[in-house]
C-alpha cells in the first residue's frame, strides 16, 4: 500500500477512530467495576461467616468476573480498531496500571467486616442492575447483548443483598450498628455511580450509553425502600467522591492490583 493511500484511509476513518477510542474507554468503565469487585470477593474465600454464604458469595464473584471478561474482550476489539496494539482480556486486566483502571471508587474499598462488604454490594448492585437494564437498550448490539446476559445475574445479586441488608439491619443491636456504620462510610462513594462524564456525552447522545444521572432517582427509591424495611437510613451528606472512572483512584486500588497482577508482571513472557 502506498503512503498516499494510507493517508487517505486515515483521513476517512479519523472520526470513527476517535469514537472507537472513546467507546473502548466506556467499555473499560463497564468492565473494571465488576473485575475489581470480583477480586475483592475472592479475598473472602475460605473466610466467610457460614458455609452456605461462601458458596453464594463466590457465585456473585464468578458472575462479576464473567461479565468483566465479556466487557474486556469487547473493549480490546474496539481498541484494536483504532490501530492500537491488540490487547486481550488478560493484557487489559494484568498489564494496565492503576491510573488506567476505570472502575468506580466504591468497589475498590476494602472488604472490612461482613457489613462493609454487604453495604458495598448493596449500593453497587442496585446501580449495576439499573445500568445494565438501560444498556440492554443500547444501539450497540454487542453492548446490548452483554447487558442482557448480565442483568439476569445482577437481578439475583440484588435480591440476595436486599435480604441481607434487612436481616442485619433488623437483626441484633450489634448487626444494626455495624450495618448502619458501613452504609454511612460508603455512602460518599455512591455519587460516582451516576456521574455522566463529559467525554462520554457523544456516546450518550448516540444512544450507545444511557445517561447515568437519570438512573439515580430510581436507585434512591429502591435502596430507600429496602433500608426502611431494614430500619436503616442513608446519610444526608451531599458530598461525593469521584474520579475512579477517569483513573483517579484511592490508595487501595494500587495494592489490590499489585497482588492481582503479580504473576503476569513478573513473568511477562509466560502463558498460563
Amino acid at each position, binding site marked *: 500500500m502506498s503512503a498516499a493511500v494510507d493517508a487517505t484511509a486515515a483521513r476517512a476513518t479519523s472520526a470513527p477512530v476517535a469514537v472507537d477510542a472513546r467507546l473502548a474507554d466506556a467499555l473499560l468503565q463497564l468492565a473494571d467495576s465488576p473485575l475489581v469487585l470480583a477480586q475483592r470477593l475472592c479475598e473472602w474465600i475460605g473466610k466467610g*461467616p457460614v458455609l452456605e454464604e461462601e458458596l453464594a458469595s463466590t457465585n456473585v464473584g464468578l458472575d462479576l468476573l464473567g461479565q468483566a471478561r465479556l466487557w474486556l474482550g469487547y473493549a480490546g476489539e474496539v481498541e484494536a480498531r483504532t490501530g492500537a496494539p491488540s490487547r486481550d482480556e488478560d493484557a487489559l486486566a*494484568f498489564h494496565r496500571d492503576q491510573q488506567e483502571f476505570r472502575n468506580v471508587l466504591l468497589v475498590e474499598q476494602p472488604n472490612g*467486616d461482613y457489613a462493609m462488604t454487604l453495604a458495598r454490594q448493596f449500593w453497587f448492585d442496585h446501580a449495576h442492575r439499573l445500568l445494565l437494564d438501560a444498556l440492554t437498550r443500547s444501539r450497540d448490539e454487542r453492548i446490548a447483548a452483554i447487558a442482557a446476559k448480565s442483568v439476569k445475574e445482577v437481578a439475583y445479586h440484588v435480591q440476595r443483598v436486599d435480604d441481607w441488608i*434487612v436481616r442485619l439491619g433488623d*437483626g441484633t443491636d450489634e448487626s444494626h450498628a455495624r450495618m448502619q456504620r458501613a452504609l454511612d462510610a460508603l455512602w460518599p462513594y455512591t455519587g460516582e455511580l451516576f456521574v455522566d462524564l463529559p467525554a462520554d456525552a457523544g456516546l450518550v447522545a448516540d444512544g450507545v450509553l444511557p445517561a447515568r444521572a437519570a438512573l439515580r432517582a430510581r436507585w434512591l427509591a429502591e435502596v430507600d425502600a429496602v433500608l426502611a424495611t431494614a430500619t436503616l437510613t442513608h446519610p444526608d451528606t451531599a458530598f461525593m467522591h469521584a474520579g475512579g472512572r477517569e483513573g483517579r483512584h484511592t490508595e487501595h486500588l494500587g495494592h489490590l492490583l499489585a497482588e492481582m497482577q503479580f504473576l503476569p508482571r513478573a*513473568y511477562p513472557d509466560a502463558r498460563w
Partner: protein
Amino acid sequence: MYAQLVDTGQKAVQDDATMSAEDRAFQQRIDADVKIEPQDAMPEAYRRTLVRQIQQHAHSEIVGMLPEGNWVTRAPSLKRKAILMAKIQDEAGHGLYLYSAVETLGVTRDETTEALLAGKSKYSSIFNYPTLNWADIGTIGWLVDGAAIMNQIPLCRCSYGPYARAMVRICKEESFHQRQGFDLLMAMCRGTPEQKAMAQDALDRWWWPSLMMFGPPDASSVHSAQSAKWKIKLLSNDELRQRFVDQTVPQAEYLGLVIPDPDLCWNAERGHYDYGAIDWDEFFAVIAGNGPCNRERLETRRKAWDDGAWVREAAVAHAAKVAARDRAAKEAA
C-alpha cells in the same frame, strides 16, 4: 486420605461369635450389602466411627480451601481465576454435603465445627503444607484431588446411605478438579523455563506428602480391619497408594517432570512401580500439629468463625422477629 487414622474405638476386630445378637444382625445386613439409613439401629461404635471419619473428610474439604485460596487473588489469567474460584467453591459444597451426612448421625454442624476449632477433630495432613508458587495449585488438583478421587469412588458403595450418596455427588463434581490441575501443569510445563522450574519445584514438595495422604500401612491396623468389616473403608491404604503411584508415574513422564524418588522403578514381576521409603516420622509430626501450616490453618478457620458469629446470630434474631410478627398478625386477625 482425607480421613486418616480413624479410631474405631475397638481393641480387636469384632468377632461374630462374641458379638451381641443386635450387632450380629447388623453385621449380617452389612454383609448382605443392605445400606444403613439414619433411623436404622446401629452399633454405637459404628456410629461414632462414621462421625469421626465423615467429620475428618468434611474438615479436609473446608481447610483444603485455604491453601488454594492463598493463590486465588493472584491467579495469572482471568480464566484460571474463574476456574479456581469455582473449584474452591465446589470444596465448600463438598464440606457442606459431608457435614449434612454427619448431622444425620445426630451431631450438628456447629458441634462438628467446634470440634475442629478445638483441635479435637482432625483433617488431612496434606493441607498443612504451604502453597508457594502458582504451580502448586495445579499440583494439588493433579495429585491431591487425584488421590482423593481414588479413595472416594469406592466410598460411593460404602454401607452408610447418606455418606454414600454424598460421595456420589462429590465424585461427579470432583472429576473435573484433577483434570483442571493437570491442564494447568501442562501449560506450565510447555511454557518458559521459569514456569517449568515452578512445576518441578511443586512436584518436589508435594510428592511425598501426597503419598502420606493414604495413611500408614494398615495391614496390621485393628481400626482399618474393623472399618473394612463395616464397609466404610473399602480398600487398604497400601492398595490405594500403589494404584496412585502406578497411575501418576506416566502422567509425570508426560509432563516431563521428575518424581523426586531415586528408588522409583517399574517392577515387571509385580506389574507395579516400586517406590522408596516414606518418612512416617514427618507424617506423624504433621498429624500431631507440627506441620508447616497447622497453626495458620486453624487460626484462619477460628477467625472466620469468630468474625462471622454476629452475622449468624443476627440472621437467627431476624428470623425470630419475623416469626413473632407473623404470629401477632395472625392472632390479631
